[in-house]
């Protein structure tokens, strides 16, 4: 049995397990007659998914969440990158990064949301702000580490070609630090994704511009349990999708170049 399982292609193994989980879930709901208000069956969830994607409600919520996340991540990543570059080239920059990341990194950025709501009001800017705060530190810390751990010989070889200043940074230091930078971006995506959903749940009421968190909260309000599940499914699937995009990009860059082991 064990050896047969190993011989199956990995995609098939995972698919079979997902089907098994769905069957157990469906079986439990059908047999136990648990209240539909408490647990929706996979079939009900599928119906809700189809209906709400068709009506455009889920599409819009998904799009809103992704847009907020990307805005926040872009701001956070750029700030993190600038901070790390500053840290590499000056002592005060290094100290600043150490102090700021020590203060803010342990702080779940979702805890800043109430403050952000006071500053920005009940607008998407508040969520963008907390997402940016969640993503800046992983990018800054990892980029800094990346720059610092570039092999000395690689740097000497670059300077030997006469490279200096920003041409040295763009031409050699940046690609040499890419494995760490990509680790930082992955971590910042993971933080950002959790933060955006959590913020939207709390935010709840942001009207038509609501994202997936708002969609789930809304479904709870109307006791549409299967829609709650549908929202969760979309969040999970999107997470898997983005993870695999990261994996794909890495496989065609840093892994191909032998700078990072395949995950």
């Amino acid at each position, binding site marked *: 049995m064990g050896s047969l399982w190993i011989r199956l292609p990995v995609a098939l193994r995972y698919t079979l397990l997902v089907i098994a989980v769905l069957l157990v879930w469906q079986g439990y709901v059908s047999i136990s007659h648990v209240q539909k208000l408490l647990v929706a069956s996979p079939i009900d969830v599928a119906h809700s998914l189809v209906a709400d994607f068709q009506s455009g409600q889920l599409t819009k919520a998904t799009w809103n969440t992704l847009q907020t996340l990307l805005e926040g991540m872009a701001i956070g990543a750029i700030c993190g990158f600038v901070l790390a570059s500053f840290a590499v080239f000056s002592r005060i920059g290094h100290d600043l990064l150490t102090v700021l990341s020590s203060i803010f990194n342990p702080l779940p950025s979702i805890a800043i949301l109430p403050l952000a709501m006071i500053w920005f009001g009940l607008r998407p800017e508040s969520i963008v702000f907390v997402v940016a705060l969640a993503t800046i530190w992983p990018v800054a810390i990892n980029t800094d580490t990346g720059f610092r751990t570039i*092999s000395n*010989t*690689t740097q*000497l*070889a*670059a*300077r*030997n*070609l*006469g*490279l*200096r200043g920003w*041409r040295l940074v763009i*031409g*050699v230091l940046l*690609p*040499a630090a*890419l494995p760490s930078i990509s680790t930082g971006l992955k971590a910042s995506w993971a933080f950002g994704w959790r933060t955006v959903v959590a913020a939207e749940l709390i935010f709840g009421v942001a009207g038509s511009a609501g994202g997936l968190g708002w969609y789930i909260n809304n479904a709870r309000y109307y006791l549409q349990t299967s829609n709650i599940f549908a929202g969760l499914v979309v969040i999970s699937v999107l997470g898997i999708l983005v993870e695999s995009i990261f994996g794909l990009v890495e496989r065609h*860059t*840093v892994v*191909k*170049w*032998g*700078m990072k082991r395949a995950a």
Partner: protein
Amino acid sequence: MISSTTPLVSATGVSIDYIDAGGRRTTAVEDASFNVQCGETFVMIGPSGCGKTTLLKAIAGFLRPARGMLLVEGQPAREPGPDRAVVFQDFDQLFAWRTVRDNVVYALRVARKMPSGAAGKKADEMLALVDIARAAHRYPHELSGGMKQRAAIARALALEPSMLLMDEPFGALDAITRNQLQIELKGIHERTGVTIVLVTHSIQEAIYLGDRVMVMSSFPARVREIVDTRDATDIESTHFAELTGRLRALLVHREEQLDQPDRAAL
């Protein structure tokens, strides 16, 4: 073969210091004087940690001498540049994110401002010269150590430097690969006439490749003697054996004896 014009490198009383984080100063090279003539292969040999790399880095422009005068082509050694192309011992001198050919093309484009067509042509020529054309489209991590060094030599030669600075380029290779690359480097030197400053701690390599061998003592490095090894190319010859004995004797001197080099030599 050696021209009588100004030496390519001229060191007079050069000392090089390192200053550590605590501000303490250690002298790695002390009072070194030597010339490198155009077209020759000048070898620096000395025990590990004696300061050979330090001296080479100063010629390359990565370090500034604390005292003395270090002239390159008659001028004080400038910032690092492609006129003094360096081949390092470490394999990570190649850019991991570029193929072998791209490493050479990129170097030509940034250091020589060549358009990509001309750079590609030159790169192919150089890869053929060091016999690595078949691996042109591989990434550095897919190469053996010997192939990486070939690629690094191709990249350095492509720049048409006025000198090639090589820091134990074959030090991390197995004996067979090392021998083969030594033979090929000699051939390349004969064909291109490029001036080579080679750091090694192998006596055999020094005599075989070098026109002159500068023996250094450790630490801080001082020049013990510069030995002419020009006509020793046949490893089997008695001349080669004599030179081997002579260099070995110079290298095994203990620190105490260094204070009285004249008496020790008697």
